[in-house]
């Protein structure tokens, strides 16, 4: 057990009379709290969490594929599934999830296969929402708010990531998204920094004079813009001040470590920004990276291969680059749903249900597939058409951020972390 030993719940701390100034206690901000309740479960989670959200519904049946399952082979033409043999054969995964099924990673996910074999990548298959929605936007909302069904959306006005950060007393630049805005998972956090790219610095335009004017303009002003502008000014200058400069004042190019090479892709750019911020020691606890391009209703073979290649390379680059932080950083990769088992006639797949989630990090009990494999025979499918969900997505996240982040919900332990 290498994780911190602060296995104590917030509730118990509060009961112990330590309510005031909780977040000021040295050492405690790195604790994740378990759910209160009958069993005093001693769950400790991620110290810093990097979430990669695959927007559009990734066809994970074509990423982590049961290649010799006759139902899988019957439902899909060869170009929509992973091959058992030949030049584009998938990479076989040693697993005990479904003995007798030959699970393979998509050939373009070879960098992920290495991480899996190295014991730092775990795959949770047939995971997702228990709610039956096939709408991107409903499903994303549910997964970002951290709830189980639409009825709860009106009662839970914040995102799960924001609630986790609040439980841990994190504020300011402790959370960021590598995009132009912050995800719904951070709704309620207030000051999450949305920065896609650090390469040209983050100082406001107009030099020191503009910075002075802007600080004066927003001092004491209210309204959503003024308060966002205030926290943007302070967050941007915190980070800008730490960016190494060349003699001419320009931001020095980023030197990745561990032989990492980031490509010019959405995933590559985003994860490079996250890696750079992690190393600045600004107290980053949560980073969010959106990766689009997974809504493959049409022409899936080429598009999906590209998307998998870009994602796999970016994850591998980030993992190599952040090698000094493997003990504290955990990544989770998820999508709002998987796709239909059967292909359509556009060489694509329509919205489905269950999918695979990935967890990656030095503390992840990797090299394993977790969850429960429901099978792909007609009677085993959700509504007769889609991979069933046997592991609620919150079961995976709860092991990283604590179950108390998810209202009215509890689950048995999966064992994502060692």
């Amino acid at each position, binding site marked *: 057990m290498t994780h911190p030993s602060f296995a104590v719940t917030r509730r118990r701390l509060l009961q112990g009379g330590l309510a005031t100034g909780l977040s000021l206690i040295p050492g405690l901000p790195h604790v994740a709290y378990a759910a209160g309740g009958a069993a005093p479960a001693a769950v400790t989670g991620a110290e810093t969490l990097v979430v990669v959200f695959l927007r559009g519904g990734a066809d994970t049946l074509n990423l982590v594929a049961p290649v010799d399952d006759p139902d899988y082979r019957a439902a899909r033409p060869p170009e929509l599934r992973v091959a058992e043999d030949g030049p584009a054969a998938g990479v076989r995964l040693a697993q005990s999830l479904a003995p007798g099924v030959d699970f393979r990673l998509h050939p373009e996910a070879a960098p992920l296969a290495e991480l899996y074999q190295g014991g730092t990548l775990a795959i949770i298959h047939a995971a997702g929402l228990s709610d039956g929605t096939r709408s991107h936007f409903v499903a994303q909302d549910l997964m970002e708010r951290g709830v189980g069904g639409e009825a709860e959306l009106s009662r839970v006005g914040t995102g799960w990531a924001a609630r986790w950060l609040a439980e841990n007393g994190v504020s300011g630049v402790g959370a960021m998204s590598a995009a132009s805005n912050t995800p719904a998972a951070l709704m309620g956090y207030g000051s999450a920094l949305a920065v896609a790219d650090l390469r040209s610095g983050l100082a406001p335009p107009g030099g020191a004079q503009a910075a002075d004017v802007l*600080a004066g303009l927003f001092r004491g002003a209210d*309204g959503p813009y003024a308060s966002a502008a205030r926290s943007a000014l302070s967050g*941007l200058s915190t980070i800008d001040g730490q960016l190494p400069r060349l003699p001419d004042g320009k931001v020095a190019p980023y030197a990745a470590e561990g032989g990492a090479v980031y490509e010019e892709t959405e995933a590559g750019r985003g994860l490079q920004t996250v890696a750079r911020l992690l190393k600045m020691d600004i107290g980053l606890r949560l980073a969010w990276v959106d990766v689009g391009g997974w809504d493959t*209703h*049409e022409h899936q073979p080429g598009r999906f291969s590209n998307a998998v290649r870009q994602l796999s390379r970016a994850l591998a680059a980030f993992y190599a680059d952040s090698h000094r932080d493997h003990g504290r950083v955990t990544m989770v990769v998820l999508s709002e749903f998987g796709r239909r088992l059967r292909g359509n006639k556009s060489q694509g797949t329509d919205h489905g249900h269950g999918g695979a989630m990935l967890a990656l990090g030095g503390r992840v009990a990797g090299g394993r597939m977790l969850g429960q494999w429901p099978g792909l025979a007609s009677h085993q499918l959700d509504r007769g058409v889609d991979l069933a969900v046997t592991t609620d997505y919150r079961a995976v996240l709860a092991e990283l951020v604590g179950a108390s982040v998810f209202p009215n919900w509890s689950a048995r332990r999966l064992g994502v972390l060692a």
Partner: protein
Amino acid sequence: MDDSFSTRALTRLTFGPKPGEAEALRRTGLPRWLDEQLSPADGQDEACQRSLDACRLRIKYGAGDGWTAVEEMRPLASLTKPIDDLWPLSDGKKPFAGPERQFPRLEVTAATLIRAVHSRWQLREVLVDFWHNHFNVNAGEQAVAAALPSYDRDVIRRHALGNFREFLEAVGGSGAMLVYLNNRSSRAGSANENYARELFELHGLGRDAYLNALYNKWREVPGAQAGNPAGYIDQDVYEAARAFTGWAVEDGAGLGGEQRLPATGRFVYVESWHDNYQKRVLGREFDPFQAPMDDGKRVLSLVADHPATALHLCRKLCARLLSDDPPDSLVKAAAQVWTENRRKPDQIRRVVRAIALSREFADHQASKVKRPLELVASFARATAVDFTATNGLIGELDGSGQRLFGCPPPTGYPDRNEAWLGAAAIRRRWTLLLGLAENWWKTGPLDTGLPFPGPVTAQAATDGWQRALHGAAPDPAVTQAILIGMKLDPAATLTPGAKDGDAKLRRLAAYVAMAPRFQAR
């Protein structure tokens, strides 16, 4: 009606008031102003047309396989071209450099900026922006880029103030949407569900009417057996997808044997791709073997007539024209106008008029953060700059989080404040304003002589810009923050036309626009 009301009305019904417009609206009165704005005549927008004609965009690329190097300034010639002329750009086998294939998106983006600033038919421009987001397509895809000028002109602009049912059919039959949501490749047997799903969820009934988590079978949906279901479930999506099979684009696709479709980008209905058997959509039975396209048209009518569609669309319109969470009373009243006029050719016009003349609209205070397009256009309008769109400005706007016609998900850009307040996005807002004020991208020099005919003190200039940009009396705290930050003596004299005077006066304009009062509408 006072000037404050007319300023507030104009910030929401236009891309922001130009000097003197608030006063003019106060004299005209809102009902007459709306009558005029809601009956736009294209021939009567000469200044805007001159700006469109004068605009030139740079295109530059090196020689490649099948083409020679190009570097030139081009007019917005695609705007009037039929889709047939542009469709070859979508063919990956034809020798076109990447910038050629993307050029139509640049042209439509430039035209959108120019119209937002110069068109006298401002309310139509606001609604065109609304509908482009409602019926979003992503021109990052080559075939969508080729179809974009026609989509903007023949679909969105033509129907922006018209009838929603007709609008739906124009969108559903457009090359841009058929490509973007893949219906062109949908075939009987295993239909592509992409368009059908978004037709229900985004274009029509809305996600509040998606009842899939509650009901597994169509007959369980309340009202379904009487033909009036409260909402839709996946079974409706599957059936609607079957109804639209055969709605396609002349894109050269094979028809079997030696036959192929021509490659023009125009709509085509391919009978042999259509699933002709019986269907059930929203509780209604469709008999097998209907006349060509009738299945799809009937789905569009069911969607257009559904009460959930009226509420969904009216809530969105009110969210655009008032606030993120508009009052329910207004949404319901607008939905009633929507429903009563659903067979009228000017249905949308009537609904917009009802919203704009409502008590809720009159009582409303500015609460919406301007999106980057609105920020740019309102600054150019308030400062009366002789504005043109340039590659540089479009590049900066693309990085602001609002890359026009380049939003990947079919939702279009979000219309809520929180989506526009990320730290990097806010920094981009400041860059846009400073760049416009200082003419970084050659969009047009800011004429400081317009608001200030002669030398002014720094204090008077800061106050003057606030009157021009905020449409309100100067706020001493804003004046002070700017003058202190700039280390300017309030009594210092700034001379318009002089180099140093102009530099300071332009900076002042940008800073005044960065203040909260200019950022909301």
